[in-house]
């Protein structure tokens, strides 16, 4: 039942926000909806921890530890983002971003906000659906849904550049997802002689996973390749990552944060589902070789762009490319440690990433630029809180202790060693160090420095609150992890490795 509510809440929130066209109301609708969603996520977690798996409509909707984790993270991210969004858009409105004549037509405030506040719930809905759909076809449909819902968010500001970004996002995403669909099709084909096609449940993951062993092997190989490329595109794995910097730097901050911390998980979730089938059918080697290749490639691609980056919004995108690379690599390393590391990383990444976007958003709104060159440093004088948080989260997101991402990266490294990939592990650490250096150098030069004499920039209470709150969560999670959460992650890991 809770599954149904998880889907209904955002689905209702969207039209509500659309028709109650007053700003304050729309804000409240979003906040309430996502708060409720988070509670439901917690409840789902509790149920899953108790019963192992929850299903509804004879297994059309199905939630195990893995899906519960993704739902929990999605709801958390959407809640945090909705809190920040309030302050963010108020500031936009104050500084008259909407009024200024854009290339198309003078954008009116309310319609724009309406666009955001009614699309976001749909966006979240499709993300939740991704996690809850048992049928792999529906899974695909839902992921396609996230693209469609977010295209308009990407071109929210209606600049030429945002149109360009939206176009690249849509086309590359569309192509990628059609590959994923092909992969799904082939999986269905390789399974259909075992299960039979006519039944509706013929694509249900919970059914497929049982007898994945008897699937048709060559078909499965091709299927996994296509799935990897397809969902990899959505997760932004190199060389399918190219849409990311554009989309992330053009979308409004809360939407970008959701893309980075929410959609990423969904895409990887789909990948993991198929990885389970593939490794059951073909054994782990075939999949893990490909995964390691693409993971390292993504990290390698991210490094130079972070080292010589001019634009801090784009820099965040490359960081998320790097992180999806890390997770894919972890999955490739495999073994209980590798999978655990990947899921830990997914969790910690989704908790940490939004703050990075929020800080960047504050800076951008305050300085009216997203180029380091024009920012001229000394930020800490005009926005001490944001500056400090920015430095902190930079360190946190690049996986330095005492922050939580260090735990996951340490686990992944150990997985690499126990998998016997010594050289790869060294490469992994080298990339991590390089990315840390590049990131910190840029951000430190942005935050520190002599006072450029700007007016104090931290006025909005909502933004302050979201930043302080999230920062304290990040610090806390670095030192201590709630036992249920870890049990959930562990459960998901066992699911993937087939230990349970």
């Amino acid at each position, binding site marked *: 039942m809770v599954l149904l509510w998880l889907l209904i809440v955002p689905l209702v929130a969207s039209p509500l926000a659309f028709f109650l066209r007053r700003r304050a109301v729309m804000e409240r609708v979003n906040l309430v909806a996502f708060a409720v969603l988070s509670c439901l996520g917690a409840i789902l977690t509790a149920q899953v921890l108790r019963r192992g798996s929850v299903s509804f409509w004879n297994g059309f909707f199905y939630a195990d530890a893995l899906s519960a984790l993704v739902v929990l993270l999605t709801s958390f991210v959407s809640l945090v983002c909705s809190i920040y969004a309030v302050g963010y858009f108020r500031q936009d409105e104050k500084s008259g971003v909407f009024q200024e004549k854009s290339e*198309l037509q003078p954008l009116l405030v309310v319609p724009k906000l309406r666009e955001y506040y009614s699309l976001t719930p749909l966006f979240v809905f499709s993300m939740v659906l991704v996690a809850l759909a048992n049928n792999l*076809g529906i899974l695909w449909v839902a992921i396609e849904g996230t693209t469609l819902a977010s295209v308009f968010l990407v071109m929210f500001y209606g600049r030429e*550049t945002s149109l*360009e970004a939206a176009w690249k996002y849509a086309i590359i995403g569309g192509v990628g997802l*059609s590959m994923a669909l092909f992969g799904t*099709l082939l999986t269905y084909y390789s399974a259909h002689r075992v299960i039979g096609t006519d039944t509706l449940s013929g694509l249900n993951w919970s059914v497929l996973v049982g007898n994945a062993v008897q699937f*048709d092997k*060559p078909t499965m190989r091709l299927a996994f390749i296509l799935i990897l490329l397809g969902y990899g595109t959505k997760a932004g794995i190199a060389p399918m990552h190219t849409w990311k910097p554009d989309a992330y730097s053009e979308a409004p901050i809360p939407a970008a944060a959701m893309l980075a911390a929410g959609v990423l998980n969904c895409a990887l979730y789909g990948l993991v589902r198929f990885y389970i089938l593939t490794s059951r059918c073909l054994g782990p080697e075939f999949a893990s070789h490909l995964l390691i290749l693409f993971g390292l490639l993504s990290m390698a691609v991210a490094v130079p762009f972070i080292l010589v980056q001019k634009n801090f919004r784009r820099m965040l995108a490359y960081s998320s490319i790097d992180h999806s690379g890390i997770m894919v690599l972890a999955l490739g390393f495999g073994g209980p440690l590798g999978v655990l590391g990947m899921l830990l990383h997914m969790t910690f990444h989704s908790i940490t990433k939004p703050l990075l976007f929020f800080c960047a958003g504050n800076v951008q709104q305050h300085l009216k630029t997203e180029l380091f060159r024009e920012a001229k440093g000394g930020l800490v004088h005009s926005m001490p809180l944001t500056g400090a948080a920015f430095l902190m989260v930079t360190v946190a997101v690049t996986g330095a202790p005492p922050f939580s991402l260090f735990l996951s990266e340490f686990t992944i490294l150990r997985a690499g060693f126990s998998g016997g990939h010594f050289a790869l592990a060294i490469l992994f650490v080298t990339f991590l160090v390089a990315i840390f250096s590049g990131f910190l150098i840029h951000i430190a030069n942005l935050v520190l420095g002599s006072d450029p004499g700007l007016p104090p920039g931290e006025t909005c209470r909502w933004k302050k609150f979201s930043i302080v709150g999230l920062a304290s969560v990040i610090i806390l999670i670095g030192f201590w992890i709630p036992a249920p959460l870890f049990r959930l992650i562990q459960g998901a890991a066992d699911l993937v490795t087939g230990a349970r």
Partner: protein
Amino acid sequence: MHLLQDAAFGDRIITLMAALVLVLQIAAVGQRWIVSSIRIFAVQSFLLAAIAGIIAYFNHANHIYVAAFLTLVIKAGLLPWLLEGLVEKIRIRREIEPLINAPLSILISGCLTLVGYVVASSFYHPEETAGRAALGHNTLAVAVALFLIGFFTILNRRKALTQVLGLLSLENGLFLAAISLTYGMPLVVELGIFFDVLVGVLVLGILVFRIREAFDSMDVSKLRKLRE
């Protein structure tokens, strides 16, 4: 009369149609006029619908009728109509030179067809060729080729609209693969996919429209502001 029960006959028909589809696709690669490439797409979709119908008829799989019907309505009817409307609205009829000139593109699509055959043969199961259940199995190669060529069209064409067309024909390839391999997906999935395609085209259409207004051209190779 007995002809209409003979699976072999149906198989031949299907193969013939599939070949036609492929020819159309390759023709679309060389095509200059947007409107005519839209029409080509419409015809292609119609043929697909027909194939679906034949398969449905020959092994009495009723849910494929639905798929066939949907294809007929949406892909062969609705979408071409919408797109032509769009063309009318933005008054850009002619595709400027593709990135790779026509002969070379056609050559490449030939190679891609070859790749399609290689891929398809890798999981082709001869024991299934006998009997009506195997209807249309050897159209798989065509499907894969369709997919690849559609992809190639997208990255070869400069106009936003023709990229959308490429995406659609790529979807067609998937559809052909679906019906020929497994007689379609479960119905829910089919519906979902069709819905997505529809919405996707609408979204892209809006995008095309806005791009046209912002840049007063549809040449996406001009969209190069966002770069390192």
